[in-house]
Each structure stands twice: as structure tokens, then as C-alpha cells.
């Protein structure tokens, strides 16, 4: 059997194993607890590490410690849990350790609800934790894409020595789709002897390694931050990923949407096409770095009159869309938050109202 039917949450767990990551630390939270449940059965089968930590705070540091000694690590959580992990994420980014975090977003603020949401866009792309750091953020729109992004996340985290975050909504975690695990995405272990605290004997040298984030000297901290910035700038040059939909048509409106929301938008775009109304879409697959040029170019089309950011949040990505459109066109927002995923009909109605 080639394909297998999996829940997004299970597929994410399996994808990490297939990518060559056998170390998972986590704390249960709906709607992603199936990842932990799945891996509590699977990790022993493959000789990996599964540990349920006492809190998301602790989990983020288990990742930090393990990553800092050279292991490939990942965790999964949902919005309130990611808030707690944000402290550790800041340290991991500051110490330049690779790690993969998956956020299966639920509604907020506070406990919010357990239904799908995209309200952690700011948290993922603009911070969450303290200090000048960025995460490489990818947003899958299908279970298969979640698999591929998880498998891609490990080499990217190692390439940049930086945490990578997968931002999925509750639907991605909960829905079932057939998936395949592409063999070519399996990562080989990378040599971390230069920096990892894996024991001097492991490296056969007397040079000790130190993983730290403290810089008491202002000049040195500035230098460190400039070096981090250079990495984030390099991500902007090399890691932007996006998908275009119905972009060859003479569209009157351009939708920018990501994750499962973009699938609702695709149905809406198909329906509008049937009615004779052309609408294009840019779907960012990386939220940081954001596909700035793609949005700008798509918004520059002669026929296009309006750009609409459609998201399951109260208008977070719209700020990036506005930034990219650079005032060329009016930028509107449409969204719903609280778990009620907008229907294709509601999207059609919203787009029409802006025209």
C-alpha cells in the first residue's frame, strides 16, 4: 500500500520520524494531543525518545538541552502551549540551536476554544518571546503538505541553526487525508561538532563548546544580533515559498490567504469563476519570510482593483499584505475567529462587497 490515510496530527508525527528526527518532547493540549499519542506508540518502535514533560515551559528547554548537544528534536503544541514555550524559543534562537516547533492553532486569547484558528500569526512571525529573533514559519494547507513541510523543517533548522515553526490550524491537525512520505526528504545527520556540547571526547578534541545567550558586553551583543539579522536576511533571499492560484486570469480582486483557509478560498474562487468573476490568490507557504514580491507583483496587475487578506484571525496577516502592496491598491480584511471556519459562500460575499 503506497498511500495511507492519516490525521494531520498523526502524519506530522510520522513525518518527523521519516525525516530522521527520533527525539520528541511534548505536553498534551487539544487539538494536537494525537501527535503525542501517536508518537508514544511509534517512538518505541523506532528506538526513539518520547517524553511527556511537566509543562510546555519545561518541554521547550528539553528541546534546547537536547538540541544543544547535537540531537535533532521537535515538539508540537497548540496556541496557549506555544505561549509558554516562547520563553524557550527565544533562548534557542539566541543560542542558535536547530529545533522544530509545530503549532496546531486554536482560538484565543486566553483559553479561547479548541476549534480552528489562525490567530497566532503575530506570535509566530513577529515574536512571541523576547528579543530580536525570527522563526522560519511554514503554513501547510493539506495533510500531505504538512508532511512535506515537517520533513523540510529539519534541514532548514539545521541550515540556519534556528528554530523553524510549522503553523497549522486545528483543521490541519484533525482532518484525515491520504498521505505519502517522500523518501527523498529524509535528512542525513549533519555535523554539529563545531558548536554542539556533545562532549569533548565525541569530537576527539580538547576544545570545549559553549551554548549560551548571555553577552554582558554591549558591543558583543550588538555583533551577535547583527549576525542573527544576517541569517534572517538570508532566509528572506533563499526560503520564500508560495503558491499562486488563478493568477493567469484577468482577476478583479486578489486574495491573500494561507493554511486551510486558502482551501475555502480556492472553492470560492472556482465558484466565482463559474459566475464570470475572476479572482486570483497568493497563498504564502512561508509566513516568515513573507512572499513580499509575489504579493506586490500580483497586486500590480492592471485588472486588479482590490486586495483582500482572508484569515481566521481578526486581521493579523493583513498588516503584512498592506506592507507588500505599498499603497498601490486598497487592502481589505475578511475573517472569522472562534472556530467557525468561513464558508466559500461567505468568502464570495465578502470579496464582492469590496468590489
Amino acid at each position, binding site marked *: *500500500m503506497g*498511500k*495511507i*490515510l*492519516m*490525521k494531520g496530527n*498523526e502524519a506530522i508525527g*510520522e513525518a518527523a520520524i521519516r525525516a530522521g528526527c527520533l527525539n520528541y518532547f511534548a505536553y498534551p493540549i*487539544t*487539538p494536537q494531543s*494525537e501527535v503525542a*499519542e*501517536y508518537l508514544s*506508540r511509534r517512538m518505541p518502535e523506532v528506538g526513539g525518545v518520547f517524553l511527556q514533560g511537566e509543562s510546555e515551559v519545561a518541554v521547550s528547554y528539553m528541546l534546547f538541552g537536547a538540541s544543544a548537544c547535537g540531537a535533532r528534536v521537535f515538539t508540537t503544541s497548540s496556541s496557549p502551549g506555544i505561549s509558554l514555550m516562547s520563553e524557550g524559543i527565544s533562548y534557542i534562537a539566541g543560542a542558535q540551536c536547530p529545533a522544530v516547533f509545530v503549532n496546531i492553532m486554536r482560538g484565543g486569547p486566553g483559553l479561547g*476554544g*479548541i*476549534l480552528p484558528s489562525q490567530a497566532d500569526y503575530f506570535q509566530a512571525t513577529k515574536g512571541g518571546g523576547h528579543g530580536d529573533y525570527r522563526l522560519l514559519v511554514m503554513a501547510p494547507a493539506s495533510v500531505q503538505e504538512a508532511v512535506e513541510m515537517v520533513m523540510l523543517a529539519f534541514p532548514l533548522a539545521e541550515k540556519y541553526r534556528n528554530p523553524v515553526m510549522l503553523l497549522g490550524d*486545528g*483543521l490541519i491537525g*484533525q*482532518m*484525515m*487525508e*491520504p498521505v505519502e512520505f517522500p523518501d527523498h526528504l529524509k535528512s542525513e545527520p549533519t555535523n554539529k561538532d563545531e558548536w554542539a556540547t556533545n562532549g569533548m571526547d565525541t569530537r576527539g578534541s580538547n576544545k570545549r563548546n559553549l551554548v549560551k545567550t548571555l553577552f554582558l558586553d554591549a558591543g558583543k551583543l550588538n555583533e551577535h544580533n547583527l549576525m542573527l539579522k544576517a541569517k534572517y536576511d538570508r532566509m528572506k533571499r533563499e526560503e520564500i515559498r508560495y503558491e499562486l492560484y488563478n493568477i493567469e486570469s484577468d482577476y478583479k480582486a486578489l486574495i491573500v490567504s494561507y493554511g*486551510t483557509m486558502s*482551501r*475555502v478560498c*480556492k*472553492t470560492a474562487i472556482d465558484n466565482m469563476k463559474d459566475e464570470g468573476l475572476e479572482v486570483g490568490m497568493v497563498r504564502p507557504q512561508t509566513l516568515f519570510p513573507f512572499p513580499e514580491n509575489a504579493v506586490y507583483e500580483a497586486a500590480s496587475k492592471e485588472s486588479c482593483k482590490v486586495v483582500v487578506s482572508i484569515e481566521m484571525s481578526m486581521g493579523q496577516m493583513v498588516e503584512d499584505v498592506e506592507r507588500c502592496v505599498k499603497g498601490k491598491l486598497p487592502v481589505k480584511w475578511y475573517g472569522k475567529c472562534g*472556530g467557525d*471556519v*468561513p*464558508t*466559500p459562500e461567505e468568502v464570495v460575499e465578502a470579496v464582492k462587497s469590496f468590489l
Partner: protein
Amino acid sequence: MEIDLDGIVIIVGNYGSGKTEVCINLAVNRKMAGLEVRIADLDLVNPYFRTREAKTRLAELGIEVVVPPKQYMQADLPILSPVVAGMIRQPSQLTLLDMGGNDVGVNVLAALGDALSGRKIHVLQVVNPFRPFTDTAEGCLKIRNEIEMASRLSISGIIGNANLIDETTVEDIYTGYDFVSGLSKESGLPLKFVTVAAELMPEIDIKHFTCPVLLIERQLVPPWKRSISLASKMK
């Protein structure tokens, strides 16, 4: 071949095996056959994609769905409606209990033990060989064992639910049928029926099967897709 089921039917299986979809469609099938049908959503485990999602549509067909109180409908809480014990004591012609996945999902059956004792019940295990952990007979039997331990009930039959949702091919249906037939032989459990999605039905040779076939019209679909209207079937 008709599906021959009445009384109390408890639908169990591993997590994500398709219990809820089977339950909803089985309810509609039996309702069309003229039976009085009730469903209780006992999935206290998974907060997404539960029978309660299809409650309104089923109600339109005259199928009663017992779900947790409205204010807790989307809560992340294991709430067991007291109505459930009542409906087991006074079952309709067909009373379907849609359980949560794995052994964890049937723990609640042990709690309903008093209500269930002495009644004629069917406990049917839904099997989709395209799911992890049930792609081998060994895996299915392990889950059977775990469910029986947790529920303190014996599984009495198998439902073959081989599918890859939208990507299911005719070949997959036949492969799945062979798998559950083999499982039936190995376990000694009768194969009660297999499922086939409505859109595949025209391509299926019904003579291929020696058991009844349940037509599946998917109800639990993501927001960008339309479910097939159950009501239209009643015409």
C-alpha cells in the same frame, strides 16, 4: 444483500477508522429500511468530526441524535449524557452507539455496564486497512483485544471500511475487502458489511462481495467541500 442489524449496535474501532461516518450512514440506511433509529454520540475523546456535526441533517430524517448539552457541544470535556443510559434501557428498533477511538474511546462503555448487562448487543469493529496500526491483521487483533479489555464487552463482528477518502480507487475497495475477509477468517468474527463511497459505486461490481455493502455519503467534510445531502436520498 441487506444489512441485517437491529437492537443495540455499538460501533468501535481504532482511532480514525471511520466509525462516525459508518454510524451516520448506517443509521440512514436502516431508517430507509423502515426502522426507528437513534444514535448516541459517545465520542468523548476527539473534539473534532463527531456525530454531533451531522445532528441537524439526521434530525431532518427523523433520526434522533443524543449529544452532550448544547453549551458543552464543542467543549474539550468528556461529558456523558445521562440520556444515554436511558436509551439503552429503552432501545428503539436500532440504537447506535458511536464510540471514540481505540481502547480509550470505549472506557465509557464499562461505565454503562449496568445499563448494558443482559441486553442483546452487537459490538462491531470498524477496520480501515489504510490506517496506521491496522494495516495488518495482527494490528487489528491487538486493537480488538485492547477495546475488549477496556469496554469489558466482546466484539461480535467486523465492518470493512477501506478508504483513502477522495483518493480511494476501485482497486483499493477490492484490496480492502480481501483484507477484511482474511481478518474475518483469522479472527472467527463475521464480516457484517463493507462500505463503498457513493461516487465509486457505479464502478463497483457488487458480485465481488459475499457480504452486504453500505453506501457511504460523506457527511464529515472540511468546510471547503459540500457533503452529499442525506435528505435527498429519502425521496
